[in-house]
């Protein structure tokens, strides 16, 4: 079954005169791992509730498996949710929790038992069938919640920040397990999170949401390396933003003016000469060079090291430029520079490779 498992056409949602979602157009491909990423209050959970049927869109239509689902209550939809706090039934054992959906479908007892056993094996919980949820650890509860949903073989599995209550180490493990599980089952996952690292590492495609709208949809690489606007760039990872102006255009190469210095930048966007732009450089692309290392400083910016934070694999620097702007730079240890020692107040030059920046129309 190829194509789109879910389609949203012009979906908006207003609750008590508050615009929660506006004009969402989204196509979810069959079998993909799609992440809705955005800060809290951006409408991502509401979008999930529209899909599960707990809310109805104010305008627009939702299609699941090609069928218009408006007015269809949650228990008749072929999507299942893994809730943020798991919502396991506390009075039921692991087995009963997982079998609940199958009981609702009135399946024969032996089929229920074999399907529950199968899914318990998938999530590695065979030993815990008779435990109650509160006798399980956070990670085990998480697995029960997933098992309880996937045992029904949904078309789409909706996951509402399912990892947010786990500690860092367990979250990492579960990220990997979830991704592997999704590959194995081939079920479409729609995953909601506010954690950009989680979104990038797990998803096939990421939807960046902001204030009820979709800012960008694309692969993790696309949204990170080619953000469509400042909102996306600021939300995904850290970014240094330079106010700038277009001086000349030569095909895909533009000459920009940054703090009085001219640099060549590469872009696929259309600009006009004289237009105000923002030039974006990721901290890991920003090079910090000490005075002894450089001769030609025509396209470099002078600054002073303000803070150096040792992170184990990297050293994070805060550099104050001559115009008082502070930029962040992440330095990696490599064969050229295995010490990476910086003193506070040390004068440095900063620069980046031409083409590694992103040029966007100016936004305030």
């Amino acid at each position: 079954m190829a194509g789109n498992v879910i389609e949203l056409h012009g979906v908006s949602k207003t609750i008590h005169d508050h615009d929660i979602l506006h004009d969402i157009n989204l196509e979810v491909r069959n079998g993909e791992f799609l992440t809705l990423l955005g800060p809290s209050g951006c409408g991502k959970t509401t979008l999930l509730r529209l899909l599960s049927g707990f809310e109805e869109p104010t305008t627009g239509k939702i299609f699941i498996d090609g069928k218009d689902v408006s007015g269809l209550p949650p228990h008749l939809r072929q999507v299942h949710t893994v809730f943020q706090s798991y919502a396991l039934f506390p009075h039921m054992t692991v087995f009963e929790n997982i079998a609940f959906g199958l009981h609702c479908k009135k399946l024969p007892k032996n089929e229920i038992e074999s399907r529950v056993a199968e899914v318990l094996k998938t999530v590695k919980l065979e030993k815990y069938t008779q435990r109650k949820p509160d006798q399980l650890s956070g990670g085990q509860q998480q697995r029960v919640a997933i098992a309880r949903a996937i045992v029904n073989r949904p078309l789409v599995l909706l996951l509402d920040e399912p990892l947010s209550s786990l500690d860092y180490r367990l979250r990492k493990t579960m990220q990997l397990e979830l991704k592997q599980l999704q590959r194995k089952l081939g079920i479409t996952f729609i995953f909601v999170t506010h954690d950009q690292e989680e979104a990038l590492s797990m998803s096939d495609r990421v939807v960046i949401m902001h204030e009820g709208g979709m800012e960008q949809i694309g692969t993790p690489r696309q949204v990170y390396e080619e953000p469509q606007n400042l909102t996306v760039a600021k939300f995904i990872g850290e970014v240094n933003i330079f106010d700038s102006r277009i001086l000349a255009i030569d095909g895909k190469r533009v000459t920009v003016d940054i703090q009085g210095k001219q640099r060549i930048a590469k872009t696929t966007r259309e600009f006009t000469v004289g237009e105000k732009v923002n030039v974006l450089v990721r901290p890991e692309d920003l090079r910090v060079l000490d005075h002894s290392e450089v001769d030609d400083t025509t396209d470099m910016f002078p600054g002073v090291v303000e803070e150096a934070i040792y992170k184990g694999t990297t050293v994070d620097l805060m550099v104050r430029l001559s115009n008082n702007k502070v930029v962040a730079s992440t330095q990696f240890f490599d064969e050229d520079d295995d010490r990476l020692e910086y003193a506070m107040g040390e004068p440095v030059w900063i620069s980046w490779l031409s083409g590694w920046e992103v040029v966007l129309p100016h936004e305030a």
Partner: protein
Amino acid sequence: MKHDNGFKYFSLGTIWLWLTVFALLPLCLVILASFFSHNQEQLVTAPFTFENYLNLFNPFHLTVKIFERSFYIAGLSTIICLVLGYPFAFFIARMRNGWKGFLILLVIIPFWTSSLIRTYSMITILKPKGMLFGLTHHTIHILYTDMAVLIGLVYNLLPFMILPLLTNIERLDQQLIDAAKDLGANRFTTFTRIILPLTMPGILAGCILVFLPAMTIFYIPDLLGGAKSILLGNLIQSQFLVSQNWPGGSAVSIALTLLLGVLLMIYWRSKRDDEATELL
């Protein structure tokens, strides 16, 4: 810290002393009295006997019939309270606007007036030419029937059903109900498989709080049920105050206490099971 402890022991000690003098001691006296005989001259007299208890098990004795009837009336009023109270508590508990506090207040307001006075006022409502039936041409006899006793009991005890249910249902996690629906449960299944089991502690607490007083409130059957309606509470009262049979009344009291104790133990057992699993 030492000062805090002093206050702790003072506080606990006062309550202990109070309950020992005014609850434990009288209870011991009642137990003692229940094993004595009774005659016209003296309230309590020798010899020591089990007759008072044996009477309770004599099927031809009035007490057994009254026990049965009391159970029946109290059980029926408990069921009516539950059926009326549960949906009410459910909807109030899940309200999110300002009406919630107001409605809970309405449930509590009757407590501000003595229940005895409220029961008297029910006579004027229920009597044949009273406020309720005054406009009809037929004479409807509700006052001085079991129906009136039931109405009185349900009216007086309904808040004791609603309040524990309310606190229990308020703690019910909406996500669990959402999860049930999400997994394909219709409203009936969601109610029977999720909501009902999870609110069972509230149901049990409410039933006990209604059933226990319903067995023993003597003035409601007295006022609304007339002379024919004798429940356990009335029996104990009349044995002590009318026929002056203290040993007999004591035996009935103790039997009732034991019975209710057993019910409470059943409740605690069900609750402890819950807590035990929570601790693990």
